[in-house]
């Protein structure tokens, strides 16, 4: 058979969807109980929403699906949503900016071209955004919420890496580059090319030694940041960013939350301004987030501090084992012995009352091999109902529909 599926696209089969919904349900439940409200943004957005400097890096922009709409004669391009946060910032500006503090969550797909077609070009994520609060408590709230969601999914061994975009930017300033060179370096770093920075530390200047101290060692508590602050070559600008970073780590220390300070975990989004974090399990990235205080004003809103995170559903699907999936063996198959109107009517009635009693009930008139635990056969003549428990290898007959439910309920 020829493969007609688009390159880089994927089908989700019933098992996949069980896992997907399991993650989504846990995520929704946690977010709701923390006071977040669900929103959804359109799949299509204007390209220019993402081209304002400081939103997406040129490398990410070169992978967006952009095209002219049917009314695109003005040359205005639209894109398939390449990112979850920027559309939420737009939604906030257009609808919710009058509220003080806005807590939102969403489950969405994002699109990015991937050349080989072996990776997914459409990925799903669970996102959370907290707009209107500049306090480090809100960064910590998000980390705690993420941890809470992962715990409710029984995912263990989650590692949290912390970094700080403000600190990174201040560090680049220490290198005393031209503004163009500095901007270029930052873009390369955000695209994941840390070598451009780490190879600089070989020299013996103050700035280079500082780079060494920051890149080669990973911190495990606020103490690491305090140690850095105490260094003589730390400038004022860098110190204030370290202070902002330490406010978050201090709170996490109080909460006994384990983490690692790793400045090289900053990745991807140019819109991050402050503390950011990355979540992983055994080296696989499962989520990331951070503070983006400039994003709302950059796309035309008033100055609004904000932070958020996203959990990546695709890698999470390999880490969860939904209970609902394990229980599919408990299903009931109701089958008619022959397809007369009378037998079909009885089958439908029985299936309906079983469903009302909470059983997953499937109908069959084709005589296929059942793979469910219970099989109820409906005959034309009494006793009309034959109940077979395939797990126990037991068979019982009855003429009253009500008894069927009792038999199944009694032995479950």
């Amino acid at each position: 058979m020829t493969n007609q599926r688009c390159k880089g696209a994927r089908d989700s089969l019933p098992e996949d969807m069980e896992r997907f919904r399991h993650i989504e349900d846990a995520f929704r439940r946690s977010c709701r109980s923390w006071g977040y409200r669900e929103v959804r943004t359109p799949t299509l957005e204007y390209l220019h929403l993402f081209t304002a400097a400081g939103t997406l890096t040129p490398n990410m922009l070169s992978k967006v699906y952009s095209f002219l709409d049917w009314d695109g004669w003005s040359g205005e391009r639209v894109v398939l949503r390449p990112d979850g946060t920027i559309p939420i910032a737009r939604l906030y500006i257009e609808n919710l900016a009058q509220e003080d503090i806005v807590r939102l969550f969403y489950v969405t797909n994002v699109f990015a071209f991937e050349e080989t077609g072996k990776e997914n070009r459409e990925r799903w994520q669970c996102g959370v955004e907290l707009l209107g609060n500049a306090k480090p408590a809100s960064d910590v709230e998000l980390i705690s919420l993420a941890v809470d969601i992962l715990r409710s999914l029984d995912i263990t061994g989650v590692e949290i890496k912390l970094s700080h975009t403000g600190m990174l930017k201040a560090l680049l300033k220490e290198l005393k580059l031209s503004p163009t060179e500095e901007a270029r370096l930052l873009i390369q770093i955000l695209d994941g090319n840390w070598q451009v920075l780490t190879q600089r530390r070989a020299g013996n200047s103050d700035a280079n030694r500082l780079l060494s101290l920051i890149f080669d060692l990973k911190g495990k508590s606020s103490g690491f940041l305090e140690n850095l602050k105490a260094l003589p070559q730390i400038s004022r600008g860098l110190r204030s960013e370290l202070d902002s970073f330490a406010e978050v780590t201090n709170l996490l220390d109080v909460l006994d939350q384990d983490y690692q300070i790793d400045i090289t975990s900053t990745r991807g989004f140019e819109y991050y301004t402050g503390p950011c974090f990355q979540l992983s399990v055994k080296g696989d990235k499962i989520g990331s987030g951070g503070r983006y205080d400039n994003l709302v004003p950059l796309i035309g809103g008033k100055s609004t501090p904000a932070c958020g995170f996203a959990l990546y559903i695709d890698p999470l699907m390999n880490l969860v084992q939904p209970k609902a999936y394990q229980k599919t063996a408990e299903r009931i198959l109701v089958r008619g012995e022959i397809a007369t109107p009378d037998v079909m009517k009885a089958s439908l009635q029985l299936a309906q009352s079983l469903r009302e009693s909470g059983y997953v009930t499937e109908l069959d008139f084709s005589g296929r091999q059942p793979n469910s635990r219970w099989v109820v056969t409906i005959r034309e003549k009494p006793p009309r109902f034959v109940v077979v428990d395939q797990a126990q290898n037991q068979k019982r007959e009855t003429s009253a529909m009500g008894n069927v439910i009792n038999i199944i309920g009694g032995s479950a």
Partner: protein
Amino acid sequence: MPTGRKPDCVKLALPKGRLLPATACLLGDTGLEFKEYTEATRTYRLRSAGTPHVSAKMFQEKDIPIQVAVGNYDLGICGLDWIEELLAKYPASALVKVLDLEYNKGKLYLATSQHGAISSLEELPARHGSWRIVTEYPGLAETSALSLRLRRFRIFPVWGATEVYPPENADLVLLWARDESDMRAQRLVSLTTLLCGSAFLIANQESWQTKDVGRIIGQLSRSIGMAVKPWLQLEPKPARSIKRFYPDFGKEKVWLAIPDGHQQVPAADFLNKAGLQVQGYSGGRLNRRPALNLDWVNIKVIRPQDMPLQVANGNFDLAITGKDWLLDHLYRFPTSPVTELADLGFGEVRVVAVVSRDLPVADIDGFRGLMHADRSSPLRVATEYVNIADKYLHDNHVGRYRLIPTWGATEALLPEDADLLIDNTQTGRTLAKHNLKIVDTLFESTARLIGNKNRLGASTKRKRIASLVRMFRQAAEGNNNEEN
């Protein structure tokens, strides 16, 4: 029995147009002469007397990178600009740049008008508002707009005459020119150079890995290494300097676009008949900003293909183009404000579906049946009218097909490089000469006056537009009566 290895058959794609004289000269010197490789030739398929295993076909230069990338041709010669444009759109294209042939040197400039409001590249990202970029290279334009971090931009792809758009109808242009002096001659100023290059020999990646094309490359590189290179003397002439240039931003002026190319002579006749005396449009030297005996009308000469989009965007109020290009635009943008105002009666062509005469089908239904029965790979449809072809194939329930956009001389593609053409024809004679037959007529097209729905009505300018439309309609009536 022949002994030794037979040379691999090699297919070469050669350019028409600006690169033809120098390419023909280089090939002749190299011992790869194709006798019929001239601008005046009637045939597209070329054979070389000296090297019978090498065959060649002539293409529009723009078509060559795609033809080589998809593997229809092993080797091709075209400008670096078109190679980079394809790679900007499709980075994974299977192309290898083999040899810099050194002729037709030039640069791709991102430029603006000398008379415009932009003075440096740094101003662009800082300013709000949407930049209008007119270019024949939309792929490269998008890449560079993104890397320049323009907040907002609109790219208007054009078929040609890029230089005439700024400053009134474009803020920026991305165009190929030999050097800065050519740019100055066209009243343009370069903001940055995107690339610098010349004609290139390219190879299909698969052919490069599997076929022996070493002899051709060896011959060519020996010629390139020689001291005397007569083909370098055959470069295109420098750009003509525009003497009188008065940009006009007057709000009440009516902007009229008139066509170059095939439609130029009948359009000039028609304008005359309508009482519009256009200086610098008919006769020898084409002035792309000709003068008119009505001082409230500004005229520019642009490609008819580009007019509907330009009228839709308000860059021009009225334009003379073909029904074919109007429909191609409307099929792509059904809510476009462009509307037909008069049938001018001249420039009659039929838009037709064409197949090879060797194919045993009489109509499109037969063709569809044949394609369904016969093949697992998608149908290849070559056309200048991408949107008309798309609609036609949908309407006729042709299942799987791939469009090959071309820039003219589409008939050269059948039967080797396409299965079906959607093309225009006046008499059908050219098609017959190339062993092709028409299986369907989509519609008949003549020149039309088009305008923008949103700009008709009251106000001084609107009144002016209305009076111009009246003049066109009267002349058109005369035209149509003559014919009946």
